[in-house]
């Protein structure tokens, strides 16, 4: 136990993201309403964004915009002063992907609602079985 607590404290960011991920995944698997599943999907994807961004973190680092003045491009940059830009770039892509997926999923949900007049999965399935 005495070893576990420093482990949690030192890496609490990962614990937080994993808890968020579990909430999202649970909603996606267990929820009955199709839009609630979508909300779960978004939580899941956001937790991954949190994870990647915390990979890029450096103690004492600032945003990766190089100060440029008179010596533009000629002074030496110490990478320790700036956070890692790569995970941020990757997550811009992941955000876009999650927005696009959400768009298509909402379009599908609208289509399903127009057809069955409900978004509860069990009601839709019951209606399909009754046919």
């Amino acid at each position, binding site marked *: 136990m005495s070893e576990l607590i420093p482990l949690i404290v030192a890496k609490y960011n990962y614990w937080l993201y*994993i808890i968020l991920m579990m909430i999202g995944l649970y909603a996606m698997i267990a929820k009955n309403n199709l839009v609630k599943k979508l909300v779960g999907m978004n939580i899941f994807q956001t937790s991954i964004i949190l994870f990647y961004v915390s990979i890029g973190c450096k*103690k004492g680092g600032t945003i*990766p915009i*190089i100060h440029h003045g008179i010596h533009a491009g000629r002074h030496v940059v110490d990478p320790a002063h700036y956070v*890692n*830009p790569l995970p941020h770039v990757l997550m*811009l892509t992941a955000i*876009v992907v999650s927005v696009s997926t959400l768009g298509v999923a909402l379009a599908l949900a609208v289509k399903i609602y127009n057809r069955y007049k409900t978004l509860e999965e069990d009601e839709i399935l019951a209606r399909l079985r009754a046919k």
Partner: protein
Amino acid sequence: MKTAGIIIVLLAGALLLYATRDFPPWGALDSPASTHVSPRYLQKAMEETAVPNVVTAVLADYRGFDTMFETTVIFCAGIGCFILLRVFRQRPGDRYYRHIATEITLHIKGGRIPKKSSEFERIDALWTPYDLIIKTVCRILVPFIQLFALYVIAHGHHSPGGGFQGGVILGASVILLAISHNMRTAIDRFSEKTNNLLMAIGVFIYTGIGTVCILLGAGFLDYRSLSAVLFVDKIMARSHGIFGVEIGVGITVMAVMISIYNNLASAGKQDEGL
């Protein structure tokens, strides 16, 4: 389903937690992620691309190929929503018209669609009459929002921003018009055809710039070769290439946001929105 869900979720969570044991400490300066590939971006981005915002430099240049597909994903979503929802042939349902002079509302059920006239204006089913303040404030706001969006796109080299963010803000300005007035007003000003063409043109600009680089004798998306046509040195050519690409991204993102909103909010009919 619930117990199965809990088991799967706990299993996944436990696995992920177990793995964090081997991670380098959070924020460590000597972790592989901060020492292997990324220092090069921080140290050389300014020298190699003349873009102080390293995120922009990596996004649009070092990993520009990813970003091209990122824009393609957005484009897919726009086309996907369009193809799923858009209905072209529709039965004329209930329509409401308002006589502007007398403020009498007419309710037309079915039948043919009346021609446009200056005496009558078409109104939504859920129409609230007293929205003068909202309309005026939004109309005043829209140009400023658009100006800000252009600033965000253009200033992506030097500060947080760029094509995606700017494009979304541009899209929001038109969507604001659709919400504050009605969807038809927004579509009158920004027709569906223009919007769909812009959607394709934006990504086409991105891919096109990459292809021009091939035609000029370098690799795909290797902006250095653009120096031959832009009359700048190779490093500034990279910077300008990134800017061109960001404009393409901005156009597509704007058009897709508007298209998704219009199709989703009207369930594909594109007449009445929220």
